[in-house]
């Protein structure tokens, strides 16, 4: 978990407000596991003050590059997305736990909502290289076609790929979780891995439980420290109490979380 200066090498707007960015950070590229995140300073002054967490989308160990997908939602992501290649990023990472190894079985389902595609691309890639006996079935949901970014990166690393949009502008009309519902009814997944909005995660968790399939979700929550010290980023745990997204997660077994309390 180094704390380093990484030179930005790529910044491309690949969809409205969606930036694909790369930084030269060989230590991180070598160490990162799918599901982990980087904690990034977005400006040189005291405002904005806190770092911003972003999932690792992909690493290129040979060139020492780490790729991120940044969606502009507020001032921090706006500043980051405005940085030009050559700029130096202050990065901590990789942080948090990654996706757990697939349980025995033939195929797994990856369900991505919007920007949640980032860690699942990395995960699909890793499954294909490290657990090559396992088939990857991916679903990517987005609101509309133009914000369905990186779908090719996910599709290229999947054995089967499904896309959904809420308005039907690409793929099936509907939600990623609708597609999962259909697949779970017909198929026998060893595990479901999901990353996206909380509502989607909740439905995925419910569907997987109904089908008796282990489900792992990557969760987002506002962070301060990113290393487990401040107790700021918690989500409610199933047995009561709280878990830290930054260090107990961001990937959790669905049954570890109290979905009732989480949804509110």
């Amino acid at each position, binding site marked *: *978990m180094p*704390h380093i200066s990484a030179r930005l090498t790529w910044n491309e707007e690949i969809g409205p407000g969606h930036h694909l960015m790369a930084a030269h950070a060989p230590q991180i590229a070598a160490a990162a596991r799918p599901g982990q995140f980087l904690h990034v300073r977005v400006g040189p002054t005291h405002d*904005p003050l806190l770092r911003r967490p972003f999932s690792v989308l992909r690493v290129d160990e040979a060139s020492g590059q780490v790729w991120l997908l940044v969606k502009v939602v507020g001032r921090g992501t706006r500043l980051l997305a405005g940085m030009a290649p050559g700029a130096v990023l202050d990065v901590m990472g990789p942080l948090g736990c990654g996706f757990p190894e697939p349980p025995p079985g033939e195929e797994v389902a990856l369900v991505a909502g919007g920007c949640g595609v980032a860690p699942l691309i990395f995960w699909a890639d890793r499954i294909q290289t490290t657990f090559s006996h396992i088939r990857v079935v991916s679903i990517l949901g987005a609101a509309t076609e133009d914000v369905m970014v990186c779908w090719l990166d996910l599709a290229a690393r999947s054995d089967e790929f499904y896309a959904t949009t809420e308005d039907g502008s690409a793929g099936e009309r509907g939600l990623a979780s609708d597609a999962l519902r259909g697949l779970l009814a017909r198929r026998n997944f060893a595990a479901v891995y999901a990353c996206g909005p909380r509502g989607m995660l909740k439905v995925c968790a419910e569907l997987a439980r109904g089908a008796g399939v282990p489900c792992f979700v990557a969760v987002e929550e*506002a962070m301060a420290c990113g290393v487990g*010290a*401040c107790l700021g980023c*918690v989500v409610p745990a199933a047995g009561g109490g709280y878990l830290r997204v930054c260090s107990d997660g961001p990937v959790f077994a669905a049954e570890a979380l109290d979905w009732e309390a989480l949804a509110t």
Partner: protein
Amino acid sequence: MRGEAGLPPVDMSVKVGPLALPSPVLVGSGTFGFGEEYAPYCDLARLGAIVTKAVTLRPREGNPGPRIWETAAGMLNAIGLQNPGLERFLAEKLPPLVAAGHVVIVNIAGHDVEEYVKLAGALDAAKGVAAIEVNVSCPNVSRGGIEFGRDPAVLGELVRAVRGATRLPLIVKLSPNVSDIVPLAAAAMEAGADALSLINTLLGMAIDARQRRPRLANVTGGLSGPAIKPVALRMVWQVWQALRPPIIGMGGIMTGEDAAEFMLAGAAAVAVGTANFVDPTSASRVAAELEDFCRGQRINHVSELTGGLQV
């Protein structure tokens, strides 16, 4: 400028009342966990002491999320004293810190005087606790410390009781959410405190205008970070002017020069809090920068800074 040829080394040791520390730079309670999380980033050996997250008698779950929100040059938190409780603290958290040779100051919080007294008694009996910091100001738990820290008489009663329960150096951490900090500082010192920590967080709030909801589940939270530094400096200076007590100054310290400002205002030592989140090397970096600052100013002993403001 560190290690610049020909310049003498700076003596960084300080005394905070009865407490002798190898460096004036501590960490703010609740911003450094129990030390372990920052060990990979921060040279803990450069720190004067590690101040723990507040410990309570029984384990506490803390508040529901969202617990933090960023504000302009600051942040709000409403952690709600989540901690494993005294027993597990003594069994699991304290021993590794002590084994690593760190000076450990334990921050305590309670619902009533009795809880504080029990906590102080138990820490007095434990091995390796250098001092107790009494948190009388955590604004997040409805039945929590805030009332203690707002009324000089109530505060005096609490401090007197805790004083009776331990011979360890006793630091009282005051709340800044008061009309006049001086009578509270005086009450704590008269009741037997050895030193004062100034300041805890300012009570604040943030709103999501589109959702029409508070940003924190707890509605209000404590404001920390560079935004509050001017208020913190002012309070340290007011208390120093009035009473000259041993003070641990904190509130928005990000650099060694910030630390020097607090010492000039009257602090014998300082604590780095929110800065740890921004830069995980902050605490040791601030210590190194403070040393450099002293060297650049031809100061041989860092404690010469304390109260050195010329008004």
